[in-house]
C-alpha cells in the first residue's frame, strides 16, 4: 500500500487549523448547555408532574435518537423556521446567506448536550448525602446558600469524570458538523482530499488529530479532578 506521505505531512498542518473551530464548537455548546441542564436536573429532582415529565421525555428522545438525525433534522428545520419568522416579522434579512452555519451547529450540539448533562447533574446531586443540607440549614443558612457553598461543589467533583466523557463524545460528535458546512477538522480533511483524491491519507491525518485532541482533553480533566478533589484526598 503506498501512501502519499508528503501530502499527509502538508495536510496535517492544514487540518490542525480546524482544531480551533472544533474546540469553539465544543466549548460553546458545553457552556450554553450547562446552566440549562442544571435547571433541568433540579426540575427532575423536584418531581413536579408536568415539568419532570417533560424533561424525562426530552432526555429520552435525545438519548434514544442518533445525533446524525438530530443534525439532519435541525439543519433542514432551523433555517426554514427562522426564515418564516423573519418574513412574518417583515425584517429584510436573508437567513440563508447571512447566518453562519456555525450557529446551527452550536444549537444542535447544545440541545444534545443539555439532555446528557442533565442526567449527569441529576445523579451527582442525588449522591450527595442529605446530612450536608441538614447541617447547613441547622446553622442558619438558607437552602440556596447551602447549595452554593456545600452541595454543588461536592456534586461537581462527583460529576467530573462523566462530564469528561461527555466532552470527549462531544468532540467526536462535532466531526459531523461538516454536514452543516462548518469548517471543522474533518471538513478541512475532506476538502484537502478532494483535490487529488488522497482520501485515505487525509482521513488518517484527521484520525491522528482527533487522538491528539482527545488526549489533551483527558489530561486537562485529570488535572482538574485532582485539583478540586483535595478534600477527598485521604478518604476511604
Amino acid at each position: 500500500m503506498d501512501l502519499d506521505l508528503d501530502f499527509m505531512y502538508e495536510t496535517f498542518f492544514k487540518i490542525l487549523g480546524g482544531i480551533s473551530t472544533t474546540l469553539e464548537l465544543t466549548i460553546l455548546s458545553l457552556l450554553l448547555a450547562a446552566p440549562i441542564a442544571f435547571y433541568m436536573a433540579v426540575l427532575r429532582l423536584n418531581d413536579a408532574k408536568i415539568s419532570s415529565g417533560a424533561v424525562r421525555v426530552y432526555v429520552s428522545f435525545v438519548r434514544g435518537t442518533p445525533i446524525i438525525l438530530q443534525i439532519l433534522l435541525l439543519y433542514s428545520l432551523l433555517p426554514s423556521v427562522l426564515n418564516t419568522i423573519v418574513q412574518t416579522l417583515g425584517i429584510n434579512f436573508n437567513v440563508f446567506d447571512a447566518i453562519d452555519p456555525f450557529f446551527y451547529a452550536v444549537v444542535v450540539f447544545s440541545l444534545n448536550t443539555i439532555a446528557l448533562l442533565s442526567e449527569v447533574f441529576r445523579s451527582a446531586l442525588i449522591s450527595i448525602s442529605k446530612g450536608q443540607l441538614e447541617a447547613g440549614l441547622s446553622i442558619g443558612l438558607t437552602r440556596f446558600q447551602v447549595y452554593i457553598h456545600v452541595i454543588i461543589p461536592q456534586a461537581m467533583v462527583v460529576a467530573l469524570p462523566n462530564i469528561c466523557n461527555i466532552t470527549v463524545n462531544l468532540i467526536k460528535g462535532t466531526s459531523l458538523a461538516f454536514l452543516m458546512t462548518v469548517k471543522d477538522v474533518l471538513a478541512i480533511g475532506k476538502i484537502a482530499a478532494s483535490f487529488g483524491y488522497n482520501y485515505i491519507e487525509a482521513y488518517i491525518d484527521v484520525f491522528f488529530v482527533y487522538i491528539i485532541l482527545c488526549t489533551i482533553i483527558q489530561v486537562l480533566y485529570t488535572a482538574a479532578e485532582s485539583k478540586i478533589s483535595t478534600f477527598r484526598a485521604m478518604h476511604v
Partner: protein
Amino acid sequence: MLMQIKNVRKQFNGVDVLKNVNVDVQKGDVIVILGPSGSGKTTFLRCLNFLEQADEGTMQFDTLHLDLSHTSSSDIAKVRKKTAFVFQNYNLFANKTALENVTLGLTAGRHVGKSEALAIGRQALDKVGLSDRYDYYPAQLSGGQQQRVGIARAIAVKPDVILFDEPTSALDPELIGEVLRVMKKLAEEGTTMIVVTHEMKFAQDVATHVIFMDGGVIVEEGAAEDIFVHPKHDRTKMFLKRILPCGGICEEYECR
C-alpha cells in the same frame, strides 16, 4: 424561661411518634433526654429546629410565639439563627476545611466579616482542642475530631441553645471521651444544651434536668439524682436496669 415547648404531636405513616411532649428550658439548663430506640427523642429534637415538622404544638422561644404545625419560613429561619444542632454523624461539610466549616455559618449566614469570622472560628476550634487542625478536611480527621469540629461549628454561631442528637453514638469507644469532655466544659460554662444520649455517666455528671421518654411521651422527668437513684415509674426502672453499667438502680450517686 428561655424556651417553652408544649403539646408536641407527630405522626409518621399513621404511627404516633410523639404523643404530647412538653418541655421547659431555662437559660443554662443542661437537659438530657434518655429513652429506648423508637421513643421519639430524636424526632422531638429535630422538631425543635424544624428539621422535622411537628403536626401539633407550640413553641415560645424568647420573644417568638410559634405554632409548630404552621410555621412560616422566616420564623423557622429565626429559630435556626438562635439554635445550633450537633448531629450523630457529624455532617461536616465535606468540601471545606475545619476552619471553613466553623466560619461558614458566620460569613454566609450572619454576614460577619471574614477576619472577624476567622478569629471566632479559631477560638471555637481552640476551645474544642483542635488548634492544630484548622486546615484539615473532614476526611483527614478521626470521628472524635470531626464531632468536635461539629461542636465548634455550633458554638461559633453563639446560639441560645445547642441541640445534640446522640453526639457520641457513631464514635469508636476510645473517641467518646474527648467529645464528652468538650460537652462537659460547655455545660460548666453555662451553655444551654438539650442532649439526646445514651451516655449515663455524662447525664449524671452534668445534667440539670433529665427526661425519660418512651413511646412518644415523657414518662418521667426530674433532677439527675431523682431519675437515676429514685426512679418512680416501672418503665423507667426497666430502662435503667438495661442501660446502667451496674446492672441495677444505682444506690450511690456515682456508679463505679
